[in-house]
């Protein structure tokens, strides 16, 4: 698929290089996603303010502000924003906080390609 036919703009917010590479690779393998990356909560919020990506994959354990605070800020900018929390942490307290802030999905690492792709499919539901 050519660059011009790609139609989903995704922001990946992740400070761990390996995780970033894996997620980018999965999203690129679909052929329909343009990926941009941010390493900190601040970079993510700045990028979101300027570009309004269709979907944001947001790690929780990132340099300030953390993923939960970044989710809060993004939803304040755009309540309809689709933000997928990606994390190694599945504890219910964090999940419930993400739900209460309006997270679109919650994916626990390690990344399984079909989970990521299912989330992309949900974008059009």
């Amino acid at each position, binding site marked *: 698929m050519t660059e011009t036919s790609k139609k989903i703009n995704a922001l990946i917010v992740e400070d*761990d290089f*390996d*995780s970033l*590479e*894996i997620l980018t*690779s*999965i999203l*690129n*393998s*679909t052929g329909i996603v343009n990926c941009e990356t941010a390493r900190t909560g601040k970079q993510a919020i700045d990028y979101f303010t300027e570009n309004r990506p269709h979907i944001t994959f947001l790690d929780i*354990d990132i340099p300030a502000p953390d993923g939960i605070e970044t989710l809060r800020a993004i939803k304040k900018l755009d309540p309809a924003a689709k933000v997928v*929390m990606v*994390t*190694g*942490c*599945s*504890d*219910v307290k964090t*999940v*419930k906080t*993400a*739900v209460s802030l309006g*997270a*679109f*999905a*919650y*994916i*626990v*690492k*390690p*990344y*399984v*390609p*079909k*989970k990521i*792709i*299912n*989330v992309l*499919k*949900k974008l059009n539901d």
Partner: protein
Amino acid sequence: MTKSHSKKILVVDDSESNRLLLSFMLQELGYQTDDTDNGEKAVEMALEFDYSALFMDINMPIMDGLEATKVLRSINFDKPIFACSAEDEPNKIKKFMNLGFTGYICKPIEAIGIQALLEQHSITSDEVESVKNENYQNKLDQLSKRFVENIPVILTKIDRAVENNSIADLKRIGHKLKGTASQFGFDRVAKIGRDIETAINKSKIPVALEKAIFLKAELNKIRKNQ
């Protein structure tokens, strides 16, 4: 009965006898099972592992089946969740379905009913095939190789964290390995990483330090085998 499925199903019920019975029936039908006794653990396990379906009791302590299902559906968890309850009032069953349950099975549960329910909802129909993309696989192989090459650095970080009694650093190492090691097939490293993080979260520092020794041994084993 055939035992050809490789799919795993999570059974959630606070009654041990119900859990054992339902798990046994599912195993007899050829499914693998895990089980837990409350909704909170069910949410965590459902997000962490790749189950084909969940069987969820309604009335449970800590978090009941309704709330657990509501939480999972709020974050677009799309695997089938079947409610299990002794409730037989149509209005209440309708309420379960409106909350996001995929189907309902009335207690006492019988194997034939479970089989019918699973077949009716053909639990794999909405799943997409795993990505078999060559570039993705190559990238994974490449990163896996780099992970192994990086093991001496990880070992040094563990030593430094232990020597300096820096529990926050040790927790960070455990957390990172929990997330990435199993991606490369090093499940044991990921599990020890998770154990370290959990122990530190529960202030069980001696346990975390002991696990750090196991972690080093496991990392050394991987390095030698490559």
